[in-house]
């Protein structure tokens, strides 16, 4: 999270969950269909539905991009669901680029990436 200068709105518990990769989407149906357990969700959706989608898919954490205002309801949902919640001022494209360069593999939509890549996460 330091790589994207993120602030922790709801910090990870102990022990910290291992982030196996990243998946970016604003459409929750895509998160539900394609995100893989253990990945970080990068999203512009600053609503509690992003946190609940992450909980359903057993994702490691949620990163809200674009410095969007995160309301109390989203923070409450993150605490309730036990999903760490971060926010960065970087745009989604920038955050994705930085995290990719930091070595986090894409994690999701295996149908779009082919079988070989799917095995990677």
């Amino acid at each position, binding site marked *: 999270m330091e790589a994207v200068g993120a602030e922790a709105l709801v910090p990870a518990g102990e022990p910290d969950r291992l982030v196996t990769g990243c998946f970016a989407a604003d459409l929750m149906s895509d998160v539900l269909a394609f995100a893989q357990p253990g990945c970080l969700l990068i999203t512009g959706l600053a609503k509690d539905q992003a946190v*609940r*989608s992450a909980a359903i898919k057993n994702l490691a954490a949620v990163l809200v991009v674009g410095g969007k205002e995160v309301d109390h309801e989203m923070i409450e949902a993150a605490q309730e669901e036990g999903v760490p919640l971060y926010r960065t001022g970087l745009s989604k494209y920038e955050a994705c680029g930085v995290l990719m360069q930091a070595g986090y593999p894409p994690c999701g939509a295996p149908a779009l990436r082919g079988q070989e890549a799917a095995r990677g996460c």
Partner: protein
Amino acid sequence: MGDKPLAHLEYPVLGRAYFLGGRASTSLRRALLQAGVEEDVLQRVCVACYEAEMNVVLHARTGYMSVDVWPDRVEVCVTDHGPGIEDVELAMQPGYSTASEEARSLGFGAGMGLPNIRQHADELAIESKVGEGVRLVMTFWRGGRRDGSEQ
């Protein structure tokens, strides 16, 4: 196999309660985990239930989610009182949506709800009466997905 399910779970779902949207499904996730349902199965159940729950929140006045855990399967029934679906076949097409701007602002409403449900459930039946509501019945087989030909 007995006549009674291993676990029976019920969740009310309120239409237009946007903040609560998804909360029944995450509660269900915890309950299924506790009931010993396998991770891959409960994930499919909860993805389908989340989409179904959001359909109720976004379109209906009120709804109900009822879940039975059996040794070999999980059965889910989501019933709502609302406008119903005029053309179920059309609604099943990826990308078809009658959702409002509000739905989109919650990260839904892109016409992927029912297609996602169909993809994650092993069996799906939709009954709808316009002006009355929708009833979704879903079956998820435990211990590997099956097609209709297997017993």
